[in-house]
């Protein structure tokens, strides 16, 4: 009897504690998910690291070009980019919850950055003296950044994205413990009420009834609130996060093609190789990569398809226009393909350089306004993707706020109600216990 009384008192308190811990835990996970989303959204460190590395390469290439082809293209000092990247690395490294793999990636990028800057400085110094070897160093710097540093920055971002998914997954978990403890607490109170009624012949025990009502309200309220939050997470947060991550992939594809095009313009097709026999088809690494990314079955088309509802309809057209523009750039690769195609048709004469398609030389580019360039297409494609990405992350943040609504209040109210229910159960038990014992002693 005493034990039953103790259980009847403790069960509601335990329920209150479980509601407190469980709800607070959900709130913490949602808060983590919100923080992680904030870090991944445009302009925050993990995303900024990749963007700043790309910007560094773009500024190096533009500075290189502006030294020779045509004057004074707008660019930042690459050393300013380097300082910004060092700030990004320090900020990211200072996070206490970074995984060991993340720390390894950040440390490696920090060690590779001076190697890259050395290559860039050598390229610019040689270029400034008019030495062709500078182009080789520029190419090497670009390869180093794209093959070594950018993948690690992407891995850091990927770790954060995985953390985001894990946080969302945990926040979307069904509140099994709360349901179990609620049912158990209610069951304990009912059992205690029945036992006491049988022994004391008092059908209704006010204290236990009050405790039961409070437990019912507490449990139902906690479970309902948690399920509503879970619904918000499952239907809204997860899709917003996936959309934002998808838009990040699109942005990466666009930046990759832009880097390809900038390097093609800078090194004037020095990275090309040719098939050894006729037809002599030229293949240039940067141009081939750009075409592969922009192609119908390329990663950009695939990634755009996944986030199509989030972007204006014109984005798909912009990709096709960019692809078309790539195929008519006056590059060795395009020239050789046209020549080979025409040579195979004996009725046509080969496309001499004075014929329609390639009626411009591959240099010099003395006027930025007339230089063949895909820069405008890059800007027109990237801008809506950035806008959509910011929009998705802001809606994600709003979704986190909605999912967290009331959870902190519920946590403490739940504990208070649990304690109150426990007190009510204790008070309800005491007179009947006294009566029970006194009857028992008289019987003895």
């Amino acid at each position, binding site marked *: 009897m005493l034990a039953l009384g103790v259980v009847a008192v403790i069960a509601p308190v335990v329920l209150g504690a479980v509601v407190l811990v469980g709800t607070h835990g959900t709130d913490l996970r949602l808060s983590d998910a919100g923080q992680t989303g904030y870090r991944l959204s445009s302009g925050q460190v993990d995303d900024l690291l990749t963007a700043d590395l790309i910007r560094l390469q773009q500024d190096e290439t533009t500075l290189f070009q502006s*030294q*020779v*082809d*045509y*004057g004074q293209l707008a660019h930042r000092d690459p050393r300013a980019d380097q300082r910004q990247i060092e700030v990004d690395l320090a900020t990211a490294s200072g996070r206490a919850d970074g995984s*060991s793999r993340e*720390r*390894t990636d950040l*440390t*490696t990028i920090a*060690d*590779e950055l001076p*190697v*890259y800057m050395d*290559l860039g400085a050598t390229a610019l110094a*040689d*270029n*400034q003296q*008019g*030495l*062709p*070897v*500078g*182009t*080789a*160093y520029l*190419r*090497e710097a670009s*390869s*180093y950044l794209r093959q*070594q540093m950018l993948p690690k920055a992407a891995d850091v971002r990927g770790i954060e994205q995985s953390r985001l998914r894990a946080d969302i997954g945990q926040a979307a978990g069904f509140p099994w413990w709360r349901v179990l403890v609620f049912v158990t607490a209610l069951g304990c109170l009912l059992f205690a009420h029945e036992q006491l009624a049988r022994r004391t012949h008092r059908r209704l025990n006010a204290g236990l009834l009050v405790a039961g009502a409070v437990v019912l309200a507490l449990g139902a309220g906690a479970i309902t609130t948690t399920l509503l939050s879970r619904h918000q997470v499952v239907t809204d947060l997860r899709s917003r996060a996936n959309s934002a991550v998808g838009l990040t992939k699109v942005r990466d594809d666009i930046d990759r093609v832009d880097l390809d095009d900038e390097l093609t313009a800078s090194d*004037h097709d*020095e*990275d*090309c*190789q*040719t*098939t050894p026999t*006729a*037809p*002599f088809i*030229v293949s240039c690494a940067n141009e081939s990569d750009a075409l592969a990314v922009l192609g119908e079955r390329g990663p950009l088309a695939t990634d755009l398809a996944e986030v199509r509802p989030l972007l204006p309809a014109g984005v798909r057209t912009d990709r096709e226009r960019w692809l078309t523009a790539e195929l008519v750039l006056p590059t*060795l690769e395009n*020239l*050789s393909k046209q*020549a*080979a195609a025409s*040579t195979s048709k*004996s009725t046509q*004469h*080969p*496309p*001499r*350089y*004075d014929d329609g398609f390639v009626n411009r*030389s*591959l*240099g*010099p580019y*003395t006027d930025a306004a007339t230089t063949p360039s895909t820069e405008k297409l890059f800007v027109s494609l990237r801008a809506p993707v950035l806008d959509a990405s910011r929009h998705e992350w802001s809606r994600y943040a709003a979704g986190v706020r909605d999912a967290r609504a009331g959870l902190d209040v519920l946590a403490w109210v739940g504990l208070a109600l649990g304690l109150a229910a426990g007190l009510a159960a204790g008070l309800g038990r005491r007179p009947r216990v006294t009566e029970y014992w006194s009857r028992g002693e008289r019987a003895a």
Partner: protein
Amino acid sequence: MNRRPTGPPRLVAAAVAVTAVLGLAACSATPTVSVPTVSVPTPLPSMSLVPVAPVTPDPVPTALPSCTNSPGSDPAASWRPPPMPSPGAMPSGSTMRRIQERGYLIAGVDQDAYQVSYRDLSPSPSPSASDGDAYQPYEGFDVDLLHAIAAAVFGRKGADRIHYVPVTQDFRLGAADEGIVDVVADSATITCSRWKQVDFSADYLDNAQELLVNSDNRKVGVSLSPDRVPRVYGMHGGKICTVGSTTSITNLAALQYTGDFRAVQATNWSDCIALLQRGAVEAMSTVNTILRGLRAQDPYLKVVGDGFSYEPQALMFPKSDPYSAGDSQFVGFVNGVIAALESGDRDGYCPQAMTAADTSCWGALYRTWLGPRPPHPPIPRYLP
């Protein structure tokens, strides 16, 4: 009355004290984060190993062997120059007339063979708005030949009417073969096999393949045996860089069999020099004119050893392009331009200023780009 048993108070106090000490120690310990050990890869241009040819190297020739692909048995022989037309008055129906009517010569050139044919990377002047041809992006010995050809077609004032198509070592043969350009000036060596795809001008520069190493390298060199068989020594398993689709790579592939080195192939000359500067290869090798230009980009390099090949250089022209019917006439015309450059004529057009010491315009070009002591120009050989 029953009394509850109690534990030893000292034991309880000791347990509490130990717990407190441990707790304080845990709280005061500074958390350490270990700095991961990482390895940073060294950036290098890509290079691929050249297969070892299972043949011993041949003696270095002094002339090209007889060939059935060339118009005559002597592969160095080209079409005889015709009576040269006056600039601006090219014969109708000829390739020169078509070039004249088009208004510019289209030429394939290298862009990183410093001082031979390279993209001029000096800070660019602002081009004149009225004369788009004032800005000339390419320079070098080979490029000056193109200026001479353009002057012969258009007149002296038209010497700059050239549209340049930068061609890689791989693509120069294709550019000529497919008729994309009128002429390729890219330090091309006359070979029998290349006569299948292109026509060659007369030999305008005799070259030999040599080695370029770091200036503090005293071990590596090339020697010729008494019967002129070359051997590379001092490499001790090291690598020698060159570029594909060249006679240089063919010569090195043969020398690998007897020399203790591996030949590697890079995409272009700039990649080779970058590999040499970063210590990834011990030497690079090609014809000496290109090597001198590469050495001019880095004073800490030097050319070593004997020349171990015979490399007569010529311009390349489309061969089987139906658009260029009569190309042999154009080739002969260009041979006439070359002959004029090699003559002692001081009244004709010369892309570089001739000094009193220059015996010919060709000598002035050589002195400007290749070295202070020009040799005698090669004696051109023509078809009978």
